[in-house]
């Protein structure tokens, strides 16, 4: 074998998979043919078969073979990599062989099981193995990096979601910075006295939580403050704040994650033609009513007198906004229940379209309120002129009624500044202008930028309970990823930009969904941040000058595969 001595030595291991591969692929033919092929002429090649490589004995066998033969490259021809790629990567990890110098070939699902003709299946298997051996020689070692992290967290917004996030995360080894643009903590909940019956176990929850936040030594509160800039990635974001009152630069620090909890506001009813009213009329938005209950302890007219009749109108601005705000039906029921307790003579007319009762306790609440005598009218249309209500009950003719007081449930929309914040973070907004999740179902409280989270009403219309759960969810994700004292290991199969080839067109920058690419103004080239990149290869597919190497999926590697695939 002296003459064949080169630096690379390739092992090709073919699994019989019991009869699954062996019965339909002539493994001996492969073993006999491979070494005679031209591309192996000046290389060392070991080709062997084994009955079941994924079994414990199989794994041990393979491990010993890699060690004893001192392979530089390894190909395993067996089942689907979806079943056992990890198995063989782990075998490599136990040896000197870098797992990125190994490749698995699927000769079961893609040959033995789908090609009934044994000869053809064998030919096909040879084709796949040749493609893989050629490819593997072009693969390069990739080495996992360990990055230090800062376990600290920045929370933007001091409403219930922000407060809950801060309290869930703050601790001896984790600092939390809580930034609020107004002059006090608490958000909208400061206006509430009564919660829903399913929540009333803890009426003064917000006061208690604000106290806890203030007492917690690991939480630093910044009032009347905004975020000025945030750059970095999971584990390492550089933050600078801005003092709103004097428009001066504020504190600067590093955190590992950011949680946006910037909440909502009610849509401007003045912009909706069918809900025109003057400031003097007895028409109130829901938040005004909450405030009234908190301030006066009851719902009264401007004169201080109790109303004799109240009309409540749901879904104000819903069609215009394009979504249901989820919580308004519930708080309208809360108001009705409050009015019913205040006096049993108040006539209540509730104008609704669909009753949205998504929590398991909600329908019971609705039925209770309804049975106490409130008049629920399902409408297809409604319009007010002051407290004169014109409405069309579903399937009936238009009607009108005068009431003493009208309460509107305007749609929730994201707080002012949400768009700017999204831009600052480089995260997308959803069609409805709330922040968008990385994955609506599987990663619902994180954005497309790893390490930036969204909770509460800025994530979408949400009640207090849902907001708190989202806050806890973000805390859960953060505490599993930013463990004090532990490092993180980012993906290594990432893309890199070759400076010399990049012409600075920034095509790749717009394409990357994860904000992994930035532009270096000085050199006029783009740069991939490897800590953020997830290795999809989209940028490599887009670059007009071929400047991007998708590691482990480089053009050179794929070309080798192509050549053998169609030889």
């Amino acid at each position, binding site marked *: 074998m002296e003459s064949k001595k080169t630096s690379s030595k390739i092992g090709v291991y073919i699994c019989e998979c019991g009869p699954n591969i062996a019965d339909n692929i002539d493994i001996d033919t492969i073993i006999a043919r491979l070494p005679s092929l031209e591309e192996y002429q000046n290389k060392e090649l070991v080709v062997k078969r084994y009955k079941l490589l994924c079994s414990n004995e199989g794994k041990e066998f393979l491990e010993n073979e890699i060690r004893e033969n001192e392979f530089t490259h390894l190909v395993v021809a067996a089942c689907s990599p979806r079943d056992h790629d990890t198995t063989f990567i782990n075998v490599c990890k136990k040896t000197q062989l870098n797992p990125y110098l190994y490749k698995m070939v699927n000769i079961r699902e*893609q040959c033995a099981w*789908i*090609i009934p003709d044994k000869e053809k299946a064998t030919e*096909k298997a040879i084709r796949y193995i040749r493609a893989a051996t050629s490819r593997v020689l072009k693969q390069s070692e990739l080495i996992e990096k360990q990055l230090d992290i800062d376990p600290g967290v920045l929370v933007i917004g001091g409403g219930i979601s922000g407060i809950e996030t801060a309290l869930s995360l703050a601790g001896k080894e984790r600092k939390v910075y809580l930034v609020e643009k107004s002059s006090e903590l608490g958000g909208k909940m400061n206006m509430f006295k009564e919660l829903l019956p399913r929540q009333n176990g803890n009426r003064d929850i917000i006061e208690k939580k604000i106290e806890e936040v203030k007492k917690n030594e690991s939480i630093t509160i910044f009032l009347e403050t905004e975020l000025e800039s945030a750059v970095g990635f999971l584990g390492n974001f550089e933050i600078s704040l801005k003092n709103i009152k004097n428009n001066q630069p504020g504190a600067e620090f590093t955190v590992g994650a950011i949680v946006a909890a910037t909440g909502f506001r009610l849509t401007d009813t003045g912009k909706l033609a069918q809900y025109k009213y003057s400031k003097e009329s007895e028409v109130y938005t829901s938040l005004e009513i909450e405030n009234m209950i908190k301030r006066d302890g009851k719902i009264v007219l401007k004169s201080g007198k109790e109303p004799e009749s109240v009309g409540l109108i749901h879904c104000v601005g819903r069609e215009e906004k394009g979504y249901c705000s989820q919580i308004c039906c519930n708080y309208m029921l809360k108001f009705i229940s409050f009015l019913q307790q205040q006096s049993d003579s108040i006539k209540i007319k509730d104008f609704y379209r669909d009753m949205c009762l998504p929590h398991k306790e909600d329908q019971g609440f609705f039925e209770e309120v309804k049975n106490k005598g409130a008049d629920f009218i399902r409408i297809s249309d409604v319009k007010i002129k002051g407290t004169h209500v014109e409405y069309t009950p579903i399937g009936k003719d238009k009607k009108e009624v005068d009431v003493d007081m009208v309460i509107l449930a305007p749609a929730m929309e994201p707080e002012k500044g949400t768009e700017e914040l999204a831009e600052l973070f480089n995260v997308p907004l959803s069609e409805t202008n709330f922040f968008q999740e990385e994955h609506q179902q599987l990663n619902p409280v994180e954005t497309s930028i790893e390490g930036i989270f969204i909770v509460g009403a800025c994530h979408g219309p949400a009640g207090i309970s849902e907001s708190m759960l989202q806050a806890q969810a973000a805390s859960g994700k953060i505490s599993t990823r930013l463990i004090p004292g532990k490092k993180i290991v980012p993906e290594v199969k990432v893309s890199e930009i070759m400076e010399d080839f990049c012409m600075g067109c920034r095509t790749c920058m717009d394409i990357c969904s994860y904000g992994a690419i930035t532009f270096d103004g000085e050199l006029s080239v783009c740069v991939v941040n490897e800590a953020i990149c997830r290795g*999809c290869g989209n940028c490599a*597919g887009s670059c007009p000058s071929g400047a991007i190497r998708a590691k482990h999926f480089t*053009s050179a590697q794929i070309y080798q595969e*192509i050549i053998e695939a*169609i030889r």
Partner: protein
Amino acid sequence: MKPEGKDNFTPKIVGYLCNWCTYAAADMAGSSKLEIAPELTVIKVMCSSRIDFNMVLTTFFNGADGILIGGCHPGDCHYDKGNYYTRRRFALFKDIMKILKLDPERLQLSWISASEGNRYAEVVNSFTEKIKKLGPNPLNGNPYF
């Protein structure tokens, strides 16, 4: 009677499959033991958006008779929007084929999700049939025509 000469032509076809959907569908087709045309050789990419001009050209210049690109259904991309880019690039790939005087039908893009093992088999088989009808790649592996 079939057109002569093409009956015993064995085409060479490359299937670029995304790791998350279509590759998984191929697995499901395999474990359902569906019969699939042996002419297509699979090359796995993480996302169909990795596929660029050079890959398409290299594949045809080296003599492939057809290319099948398989990705997740629009909206299902594991990497958010990758397959939307694939779809756009695909239109450009087709234009390039016209310039090369290659029948654009030799390049096909199919969305096949992980549970669609049956559909994977159907798509591969019908694409293979189509390429057989189209006959050998006229570039014949010669990049300089």
